[in-house]
């Protein structure tokens, strides 16, 4: 418990420094742009592949589980859309990115710590935490909602392919289902989650990397801790955000 509070305090202090006024704006602008490209584009492929199969599986599972004469088959389309928008796209993608982006951030910053690159920044009077971490957080919080939107389309598209190439559900029923009772509020909820989760899967691994000490082994451990902790925190945050928005 004491250790938990210590880390929480240290994390909050780090975030305080990250969001304090930067000394020279010009050096941040390029970093932000670079991070948006590397965090966004580099994750697009994996997001699309996973979302496609995810949507296909949701459609098949739903169909297999409501095989009843009393439930209309457009429910399959409806359920695919709802579970994709509300949970699968924002939450599963965040967990995937916690693994991919999170480990990347923790090891990159951890390596900079153990090779004294962070000290080199500090000697020049650069706020190293802001310089290294702020562009990653901002880039991710901006980009992740877009990735989630893309994931939503691709996932629902995956279900559409199932409707087209199997006889589980007709295309007409599926298309009717995915349009049924659409509430924009649900997308707002999902994209808010995407932004919050992006903050978590960048800042938590960044914290772990920033305070890594020792050598390559410790950086590896810091990276693992960053991924595990951000995944857990994402799922807990998911619960609270859902309660806040939907009840």
């Amino acid at each position, binding site marked *: 418990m004491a250790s938990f509070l210590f880390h929480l305090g240290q994390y909050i202090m780090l975030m305080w420094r990250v969001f304090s006024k930067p000394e*020279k704006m010009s*050096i941040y602008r390029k970093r932000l742009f670079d991070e948006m490209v590397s965090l966004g584009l580099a994750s697009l492929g994996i997001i699309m592949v996973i979302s496609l199969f995810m949507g296909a599986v949701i459609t098949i599972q739903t169909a297999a589980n409501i095989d009843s004469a009393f439930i209309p088959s457009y429910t399959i389309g409806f359920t695919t859309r709802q579970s994709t928008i509300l949970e699968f796209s924002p939450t599963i993608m965040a967990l995937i990115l916690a693994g991919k982006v999170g480990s990347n951030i923790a090891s990159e910053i951890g390596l*900079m710590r153990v*090779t*004294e*690159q962070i000290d*080199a920044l500090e*000697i*020049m*009077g650069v706020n190293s935490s802001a310089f290294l971490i702020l562009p990653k957080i901002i880039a991710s919080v901006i980009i992740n909602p877009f990735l989630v939107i893309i994931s939503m389309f691709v996932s629902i598209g995956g279900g559409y392919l199932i409707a087209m190439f199997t006889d589980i559900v007709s295309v007409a029923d599926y298309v009717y289902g995915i349009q049924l009772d659409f509430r924009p509020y649900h997308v707002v909820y999902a994209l808010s989650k995407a932004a919050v989760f992006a903050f978590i899967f960048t800042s938590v691994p960044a914290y772990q990397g920033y305070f890594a000490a020792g050598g390559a082994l410790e950086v590896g451990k810091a990276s693992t801790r960053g991924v595990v902790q951000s995944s857990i925190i994402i799922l807990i945050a998911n619960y609270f955000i859902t309660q806040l928005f939907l009840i």
Partner: protein
Amino acid sequence: MIEVVGLNKSFGENHVLKDISAVFETGKTSLIIGASGSGKSTLARCLVGLIAPETGKMLYDGRDFLELNNKEKKALRKEIGFLFQGSALFDFMTVEENVRFPLDILTDLSKKEKQIRVDEVLERVELPTAHKLFPSELSGGMKKRVGIARAISPHPKYLFCDEPNSGLDPQTSIVIDNLIHDITIEYNITTLVISHDMNSVMEIGEYILFIHKGEKWWEGDNKKILQTDNEELLSFVNASGFLSNKKAGS
């Protein structure tokens, strides 16, 4: 000139620096030597403000680092260059960007002036064509050169080098030592080199501070060091194998 007076630093129970006092003169290459773990890096890190000592004074030509306000500290930072043990080049930047970075941060030079400065220092460390390479594409010796170029690009008055020879072969070590020594004279700066290499000591040690378990144990120059009767210093010199190599060679 850097004057250190009564510096003390502990990490928890571990009293690492014990009442260190020394004077490092302008235009001279001063060496801080001692066994691994004796506190050499800690001393350098205190001097440049990376860690705060508990007590003591660190006077940069009369200005006590620990008493300066933020603005004065910023001005002093401009005058300090640091070469780290592993070079610590920013690995997401090219050589050129690395060398320009302190200029971006610390100076108000124009783009063109910065470019002239970058070319000048890369020329000085004999890497006139490495501009576009990334640190991962450089050899150990080249990294040290770029590290030196980055440290001297804002034209500092004080230069710190933490184990500039670590990881280098003996020939390259001598070249890097001499480069640091020559730059010190050319730019007339105060240079502190941390080392445990007796070859460096004999080659460039105009002033030598020997630290043993966090205490100042001996000071002098490279002429006096071989005549010392200080037991710990002798065992340090002998452990380096320097004397036996000399005997075998002669």
